[in-house]
């Protein structure tokens, strides 16, 4: 009786809200946890400085974000996907299958990837790509022969490094950071140490060797972190011997707990990254569904606000937080103003 009433009213509420839900008035964003801090800074400022509501920014990783982005066009799909890597051909195809054809690619700046360890831990102060490869690859070169990785301590292959057990916390495969780590550190180390040549000489095709070069040992010395950098930080805090892979901005926020290592002799900073000297950096992007511009209020304004000189330029709040400004920001601003989609002009 009264239960019947309650249930019907509940259903009525659900029905009413379902119909009112049709008009979404805030921008919906998801994707890379590396871009999330920047996006949240911009989203807050966008709500504070304009008359549009504050966009909703979700985390979850570049791949997860792009997957949701490509689910289709309409108000129940997200408008913007943040990514710490460029969109892949496969993803563009998946998007097109679901009707998401016009995508605007916006590069917001660069992010450095640093290797940091506990501030009181062993003296991990200088690495090269070859060091990281020797420590973390499954097959390495020892005395000119390709063998299964026998190294247990850093000093096993480089006397300049401390005699501490190898333990590295690297981003999991769903993170865009992992790809950069593989391509700019492991793969480079693979070539430098001659392991790649050895693989090709051993009968592998060049493509297979390139793929094999990206592998990481699986005996527990290298640990995939699927969570955020805070999880990596907690693991580093618990393991004095551990080194972790962080974004530059995260490291700069936690300089009291972490010390950073140079890569190939260059210490990471916004300056060395913007000049391209520091080797491990990657561009950050977000992708906009052009079909949603004009449908979701504030979407285009959000994009141009994000890329304005005041926010993304040098000295802006994003640069203060650790983003390396894009020297070609003006071109990006123009591109957003003209709504240039991928493949149409760029």
């Amino acid at each position, binding site marked *: 009786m009264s239960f019947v009433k309650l249930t019907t009213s509940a259903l009525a509420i659900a029905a009413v809200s379902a119909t009112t839900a049709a008009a979404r008035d805030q921008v919906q964003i998801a994707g890379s946890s590396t871009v999330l801090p920047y996006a949240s800074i911009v989203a807050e400022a966008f709500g504070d400085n304009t008359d549009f509501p504050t966009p909703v920014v979700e985390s979850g990783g570049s791949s997860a974000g792009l997957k949701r982005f490509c689910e289709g066009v309409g108000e129940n799909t997200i408008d913007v996907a943040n990514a710490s890597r460029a969109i892949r051909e496969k993803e563009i195809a998946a998007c097109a299958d679901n009707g998401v054809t016009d995508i605007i690619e916006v590069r917001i700046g660069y992010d450095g990837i640093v290797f940091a360890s506990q501030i009181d831990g062993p003296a991990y102060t200088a690495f090269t790509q070859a060091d990281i490869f020797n420590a973390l690859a499954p097959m390495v070169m020892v005395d000119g022969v390709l063998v299964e990785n026998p190294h247990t301590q850093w000093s096993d292959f480089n006397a300049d490094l401390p005699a501490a057990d190898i333990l590295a916390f690297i981003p999991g495969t769903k993170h865009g950071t992992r790809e950069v780590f593989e391509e700019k550190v492991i793969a480079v180390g693979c070539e430098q140490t001659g392991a790649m040549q050895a693989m090709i000489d051993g009968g592998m095709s060049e493509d297979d060797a390139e793929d094999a070069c990206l592998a990481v040992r699986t005996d527990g010395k290298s640990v995939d972190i699927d969570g955020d950098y805070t999880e990596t930080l907690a693991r580093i805090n618990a393991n004095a011997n551990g080194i972790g892979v962080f974004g530059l901005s995260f490291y*700069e926020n936690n300089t009291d707990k972490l010390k950073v290592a140079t890569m190939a002799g260059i210490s990471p900073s916004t300056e060395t990254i913007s000049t391209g000297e520091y080797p491990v950096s990657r561009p950050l992007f977000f992708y906009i569904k052009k079909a949603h511009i004009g449908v979701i209020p504030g979407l285009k304004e959000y994009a141009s606000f994000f890329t304005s000189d005041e926010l993304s330029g040098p000295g802006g709040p994003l640069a203060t937080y650790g983003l390396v400004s894009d020297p070609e920001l003006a071109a990006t601003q123009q591109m957003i103003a003209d709504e240039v989609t991928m493949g149409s002009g760029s």
Partner: protein
Amino acid sequence: MTDATAPSLPRKSKSLLAEDDRTKKRNAAEKRFKYYGIAAISVGLVFLVILVATILREGTPAFTRTAVTVDFVLTQEQFDEAESAVLKTAAYTRLFSQFVADQAEEKGVATDLTDEDRAEIAAGLERIMGKIGSDIRVHYRENPDDVGSPVRFNLAAASRVDAYLNNGQSRDGFVSSRFLEEQDLDLIDAMVEIDMIGSDWDRTFFFGSDSGVDNPGGAGIGVAVVGSFFMMIVVLVLSLPISVAASIYLEEFAPKNRFTDLIEVNISNLAAVPSIVFGILGLAVFIQFMHLPQSAPLVGGLVLTLMTLPTIIISTRASLKSVPPSIRDAALGVGASKMQTVFHHVLPLAAPGILTGTIIGLAQALGETAPLLLIGMVGFVARAYPDTFVGGFTEANSVMPAQIYTWASRADPGFYEKAWGGIIILLVFLLTMNIIAIILRRRFERRW
């Protein structure tokens, strides 16, 4: 006759006061068991004390903030200038820092300043103040008459200033960074000296919304509390009637056959399903198929309803079962129909148990994060209080556990503190709900 049986007893006659070996053994075993029990409880208590102490120690700093009090004058010209900028909030921050730096001598922060010193102080103040532009802008937009006359502002300082003053961080270990430089510490000390910087109760934390990652001082849990409230309404309104109806039917009306047995087993199994599974289901059914809004408490409530249903059904059935059959027999005996029996006699007697089960189910749902990850309630979401009652269900919002999770994963240590503070608030709510459940049980429960 009677004395003839006495010698036939083979008993070793012994004093009742002296224990024989077997009794001793049994008594010792009993004692040992008691000690095991006490040890188990003590271990539990120690962990509880450690947990509560840690939460209180880490979390209470979130309730206070370091604030800067300044009488600020904004001219009409400056107001117009700031409003015409792209990043208006930053313009206000700059104007404010400039104003304080210009007044540094009058206020007694420093003496004999050159213009260069002033510029340096202004730059230092921008670091010390953190993100205050939004507060100033909101004030002048709401009170345009205040432009031109002095207004007393009480603005939050940056999180690192807070850490320096409250956590007793020594200067030796201080590392200069973009966020706070070593010379800023002198300025902070001077400002503390003249009571310009002080500690006060952080209202923003209780009533505010989530903030950008560079602004831990502006973050508050208030909006997320409201989100939790609306989500709990959905859970309560849907799960209580559905589960009570289901339990009454299964317990009082349904025939006992293989089919109802199957349903029973499935309900028990559902109660043990990991909550993330319900999140995946919610994403597929409510958002992708039914096109309900993302990040909305309505969808969160629907997902958590699915999760809570089995819990409430099981406890409701248990309390219906505990009503003695004699009550039913008596009601049926005087001619009541089956439905009258259930609604007039059985249900009222079972109500305390049902309520307890419901409240515990709700408390479980209140602390749940995993299913909400998938329906868009985790991230930078809780930004504004809903405008209308219906809006409370459909507008994007977060909930307390999701907000805590978000804060805990941010780089700035200031957010870590906020996360612990949020845990305290969440625990207060959970504790209140559990206490209500206990009180209800104590007051209304009848033993047969």
